[in-house]
C-alpha cells in the first residue's frame, strides 16, 4: 500500500487510467479483429496487418492534407485536398474502401500463389509484405513524424472527477459498431455464411458452389478495411510514421491470443483488458512506459502456456 501511495495513488486516478486504457484498447481491438478475420480464413497470423493499416492511414492523411509525398511531387498533384468541413470523415471512408480494394489485390497477387503452402512459407510471405509496405510508405512519405488530426473534439467530459476523452469515447464507439457489423455480416448474410463455410469446410463449400478462393480474397479485403479503421483512429494519438503500427500490432497480437485467436468477441475483450493492463503498467510501475512491449510478450507467453485457447476460444484438438 505504501508503494502505491508513494506513486501518487488515488482512486479516481486509477479509474482515469482504466478509462484511457480502454480507449487505447479499442484501437488494439480493431486491429485484432482484422487479424482474427485472416486467421479464421487461413490459419495464419498476418504480420503485415499493422503495416497495411499504416498505409491506409497515409492514404487518409494524403486526402485530408494534400500531401501525396514523392508520388504527388512527381505527378504534380500535391496540395490537392478535400477542402470540406467533413474532410476527415470523407477521407476516412475513401481510405477504408480503398483499403478493401488493396486487400483484395494483395490476396490475389501475393497470397493466392501460396494457398495451401506450409506455415513457414506463409509467415515469410506476410513478413515480405510487411517489408514492402513499410518500404513503400517510407520511400514515398519519408520517415519524419507527421501530425494527422483529429476525428473527434479535443476535449473531455467530466464525470465524478474522471474525465472521459471524446477521442477515447469515439474510438470505443467505432469499435463497437465494427464488432456488431461483423457479427451481423457473418451470422445473417449469405456472403458472410459462405465465407465462414469456405474457411471451415473448403471442400464441401466448393461442392455447393461457394467460390472458396474468392472468399479468401474477400476476407483479406475486409481485414484490410477493418485494419484501416484502427490505423486512422490511432494516428492522432501516436503521430504518423511508417513504424507507427509496430507496437500496436504486437498489442493486437497479445489481445488476439488472450481472447482466443479465432474469436472476434474474444479479440475485443482481450484488447480492452490489454489496453487497461498496459495503462496501469505504464503508470504504476517505475519505467513502465518502456516495459509495455515486454509486458505484452509476457502476456502472450503466459496465456499460451496456461490456456492456449485464450479466454473465449475453444480448445484445439489434434488428430495424430
Amino acid at each position: 500500500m505504501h508503494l502505491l501511495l508513494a506513486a501518487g495513488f488515488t482512486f479516481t486516478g486509477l479509474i482515469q487510467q482504466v478509462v484511457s486504457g480502454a480507449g487505447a484498447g479499442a484501437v488494439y481491438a480493431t486491429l485484432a479483429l482484422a487479424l482474427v478475420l485472416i486467421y479464421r480464413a487461413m490459419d495464419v497470423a498476418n504480420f503485415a496487418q499493422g503495416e497495411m493499416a499504416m498505409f491506409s492511414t497515409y492514404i487518409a492523411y494524403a486526402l485530408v492534407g494534400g500531401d501525396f509525398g514523392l508520388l504527388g511531387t512527381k505527378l504534380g498533384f500535391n496540395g490537392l485536398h478535400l477542402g470540406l468541413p467533413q474532410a476527415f470523415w470523407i477521407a476516412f471512408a475513401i481510405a477504408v474502401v480503398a483499403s478493401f480494394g488493396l486487400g483484395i489485390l494483395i490476396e490475389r497477387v501475393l497470397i493466392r500463389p501460396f494457398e495451401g503452402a506450409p506455415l513457414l512459407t506463409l509467415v515469410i510471405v506476410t513478413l515480405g509484405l510487411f517489408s514492402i509496405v513499410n518500404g513503400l510508405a517510407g520511400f514515398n512519405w519519408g520517415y519524419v513524424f507527421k501530425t494527422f488530426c483529429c476525428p473527434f473534439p479535443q476535449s473531455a467530459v467530466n464525470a465524478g472527477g474522471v474525465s472521459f476523452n471524446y477521442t477515447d469515447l469515439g474510438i470505443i464507439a467505432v469499435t463497437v459498431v465494427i464488432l456488431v457489423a461483423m457479427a451481423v455480416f457473418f451470422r445473417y448474410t449469405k456472403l458472410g455464411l459462405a465465407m465462414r463455410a469456405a474457411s471451415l469446410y473448403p471442400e464441401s463449400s466448393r461442392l455447393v458452389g461457394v467460390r472458396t478462393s474468392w472468399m479468401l480474397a474477400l476476407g483479406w479485403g475486409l481485414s484490410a478495411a477493418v485494419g484501416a479503421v484502427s490505423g486512422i483512429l490511432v494516428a492522432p494519438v501516436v503521430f504518423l510514421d511508417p513504424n507507427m503500427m509496430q507496437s500496436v500490432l504486437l498489442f493486437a497480437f497479445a489481445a488476439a491470443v488472450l481472447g482466443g485467436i479465432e474469436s472476434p468477441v474474444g479479440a475485443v475483450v482481450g484488447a480492452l483488458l490489454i489496453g487497461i493492463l498496459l495503462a496501469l503498467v505504464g503508470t504504476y510501475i517505475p519505467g513502465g512506459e518502456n516495459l509495455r512491449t515486454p509486458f505484452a510478450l509476457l502476456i502472450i507467453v503466459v496465456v499460451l502456456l496456461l490456456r492456449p485457447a485464450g479466454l473465449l476460444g475453444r480448445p484445439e484438438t489434434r488428430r495424430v
Partner: protein
Amino acid sequence: MRRDYLNWAIGAVGLALLLVIPNVTDQFQTFMFAQVAAYAVAVVGLNILTGYSGQISLGNGAFMAIGSYTTALLTARAGWPYLVTIPVGGLLAGLVGLLVGIPALRLRGIYLALATFALALSVTPVLNNYDKLTGGHLGVGFKAVTPPFDIPLSNEQWLYFLGWIIFFLVFVPAWLLLRGRTGRAWMAIRDSETAAAANGVGLAYYKTLAFGISAFYAGVAGSLLVIDFAYVNPDSYSLNLSLQLLVAMVIGGLANIWGPLFGALLVVWLPYMAEKAVNSKPDLAFGALLIVVVFLAPNGIAGLLRRGLLVLRGRRREAGQITGALEATPAEADQIAT
C-alpha cells in the same frame, strides 16, 4: 569421384577469394566484408533453428543483443580482452536460448512466431529501460580494436580476418552436427513431429538443443559485430535486425549449409547499394526479393547454385529432384489432419 574433385575445386576457389578480398578492396569494403562474417554466423544459427529444426524464430536479434552487450560491457567497463568476451557472449546467449527453448516447446507453429516476434520488439525498450547497466540511448563504446603483436594489417583487415576465423571455428562444428545424427533428428522433427517421436527422436531434447545452439551462434555474431564497430546502442536491436536475419536465411537458402554466406552478403551490401542508388532504405527490395525467392526458388541462392552445378555435370534429372524445407512435407499432412 569426379564429383569430389569439383567440390574441392569450388572450396579452394572460395577460400582463395576470402584471402584475396582484404588485399584488393578499400578500407570501407574490407570493413563491410568483415561484417558479412558476423552476419553469416548469426544466419547459420537461425538456419539451425528455423531451417533445420522447423521452429519459426523472428527473435534471434534478441540473442545477438545478449552477445553484443556482454562484449561491450566486459570490454568497456571490466577491461576484459575483447577476444575472451566472444565465447562468453556466445555461451551466455546460448544459456538464455536454452531457457527460452523450454517454454517454446509448448508453442507450436504460428504461436512460436508470435512469441518470438514479441521478443524481437522487446529488446530495444528493455535495453533503454535498464540504462544504468546498458547506458540507455547513449550506448556503450570502447577503444577501437587494433591488430595484436604488431601484425602488419590495417584495423579493417584485422577485423576481417578475425571475423572469418571465428566464422570457420563455429561453422565446422555446425556442419558436422547437421550432417550427423543431430541434424537428421532436427529435420525429422521439422518434417513431422509425430513421425519423429514415433521413431524415437526425443522432441523436447532436440528442440531445446536447437534453441540453445542457435542462440549461441547469435551471441557470437553479436559479439563480433560489436567488436567491428567498437560501439553498441539499443536502436541496432530493433525488429529490423531479426527481419534481416530471416531475409538472409530465406534468400541465401533455407536449410542449406552454404545459404548463410550468400544471405549475409546480401543483407550487408544491399542496404548500402539501395542508399547509393535510390537514396532509400532497402526494405522494399528485401520484401520483394523475399516473396520472389519463396515463389520461384524456395531453396534460395544456394539451392539455385546447387541445381546449376548438377546441370553442369549432366545430372539434370537429379537437379529437378532437389527438395527443401519449404516444399510439401509430411508436416502438411499433419496440419491437414487437425
